């Protein structure tokens, strides 16, 4: 797979504060790439450097194999950008605005008209005739996506597209992002983990200026899967009976208990869930719940930013 966006050893500081310290990132084509990090982690800074709006202290960025130059960059031709709070010329109407965008990117009149109508219906603003100044935030966000997709970019960069929206607005934006997958690669930054789980196939966690976690979602979960189980019992007696079983007294197994539930972490892969089940059947206990521990994105994120 070709990397559509490659970031190499990026450094950037503002005053004494180092925002990026050797960031490496690789975004393969046709993926939805979730760029996660706390507020102030440097997500927006990274995006602005990719767009040639900020100057990195050192390091390089390539978009579609072409190096990004600070200031006036040609690479922006293949990028569509949606800022976190997109602002437009409020005195224009959606079609007028897209016409201006089309003229600036160099699309023909006919093409602009065709694409504008297509995109406005994709984002649900087709029949919106009022001026942009009267738009709600969700509507502006959707118009933002329309303008970003106007020149059929190979790479769509969205800076926290869902952060300020209500649940319905968020769902709409995520659905649009899913709809354009396949035609374009999407990089979107966010700190809402459920959004990432819904649409992204790859994620990267930015912390202290570098990526502390990255890969496909399933890969990461597999890599961080703890061989652990949670057992919940009907009574305290059963719980303590299980906890104090002779068979479980071995170094590979560690147990912790709180109330009626016992968490068993198993270090040895040969000693799996079936072993615990056999112990249960020996003791003739039927737990209320027996579950394998699945790492949540939240726990992975917490781990990555520690």
């Amino acid at each position: 797979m070709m990397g559509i966006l490659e970031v190499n050893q990026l450094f950037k500081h503002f005053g004494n504060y180092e925002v990026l310290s050797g960031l490496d990132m690789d975004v393969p084509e046709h993926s939805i790439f979730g760029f996660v990090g706390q507020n102030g982690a440097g997500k927006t800074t990274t995006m602005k450097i990719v767009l040639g709006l900020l100057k990195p202290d050192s390091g390089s960025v390539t978009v579609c194999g072409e190096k990004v130059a600070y200031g006036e960059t040609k690479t922006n031709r293949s990028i569509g950008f949606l800022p976190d709070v997109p602002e437009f010329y409020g005195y224009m109407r959606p079609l007028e605005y897209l016409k201006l965008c089309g003229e600036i990117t160099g699309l023909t009149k006919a093409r602009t008209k065709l694409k504008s109508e297509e995109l406005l219906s994709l984002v649900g603003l087709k029949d919106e005739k009022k001026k942009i100044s009267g738009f709600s935030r969700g509507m502006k966000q959707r118009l933002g996506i329309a303008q970003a997709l106007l020149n059929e970019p190979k790479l769509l960069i969205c800076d926290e597209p869902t952060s300020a929206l209500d649940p319905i607005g968020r769902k709409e934006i995520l659905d649009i992002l899913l709809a354009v997958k396949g035609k374009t690669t999407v990089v979107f930054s966010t700190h809402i983990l459920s959004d990432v789980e819904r649409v992204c196939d790859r994620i990267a966690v930015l912390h202290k200026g570098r990526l502390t976690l990255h890969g496909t979602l399933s890969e990461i979960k597999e890599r961080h899967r703890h061989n652990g189980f949670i057992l919940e019992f009907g009574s305290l007696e059963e719980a303590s009976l299980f906890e104090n079983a002779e068979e479980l007294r071995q170094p590979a197994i560690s147990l912790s208990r709180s109330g009626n539930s016992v968490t068993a972490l198993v270090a040895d892969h040969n000693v799996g869930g079936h072993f615990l089940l056999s112990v249960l059947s020996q003791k003739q206990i039927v737990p209320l719940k027996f579950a394998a521990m699945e790492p949540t994105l939240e726990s992975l994120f917490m781990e990555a930013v520690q």
Partner: protein
Amino acid sequence: MRNYTVFLKKEIFEYTKTYKLLIMLMVFAVFGITNPLMAKLLPEILGSLMADSISMSLPEATAFDAWTQFFKNATQMGLIVMTILFSSILSWELSKGTLIIMLTKGLSRTVVILSKYTCMVLVWTTSIALCFGLTYGYTVYLFPGDLTVNLLFSTFCLWLFGVFLLAVLLFAATLTKSNYGCLLITGTAIVVCMLVNIIPATHRYNPISLATDNLGLVTNSIEVSSLYCPILISCLLSLFLVVLSVLIFRKKQL
């Protein structure tokens, strides 16, 4: 340069839609109409205010008084209104973030600066032309037969000073992030020009002469040729400032 026309059109559209053009034209139209009227009516108003016991002869108003008003209003009020109106030329778009989207669409930063400057000069030119036209018309009507010299040249000097002022403003706008910073720098530049003007020897080279010598030109007390030097210097400085603005803006972190 296709984008230059596109963005210039957008700028003009913006000035019409946000009433900035209307404000400029109205202010200058009001000046244009009131200049000769004030000149005509002022002696009569003063005369009617005076008690009968005091007799005082007031000089008859002439076309020259109308042009005095013109050069005073346009240079003082007019240029101030223009500076305030245009002070947010870049800061507004940068702080709102509207320009970012345009830049990521492939709009060159050079084009942004050049089209914005062109638009400002166009608005200024239209305004001063309107004001001049109205003043001229009314003056001919109210003071028939009065002759004035060097009128066009004197107005041209004033126009050129406006162009120079806009170049300073543009340069200031690329240096700062807020419109107050822009106003401060522009104001400081003009004050410096005025202070330097105190030294008589510098008067021949100072761009501000273009806005202070207008009446002298009309009364023929100042030689036309004495302004050639400030004209040249203003042109060169304006050009230099615009080029510098482009260079700075191309390297500005947004």
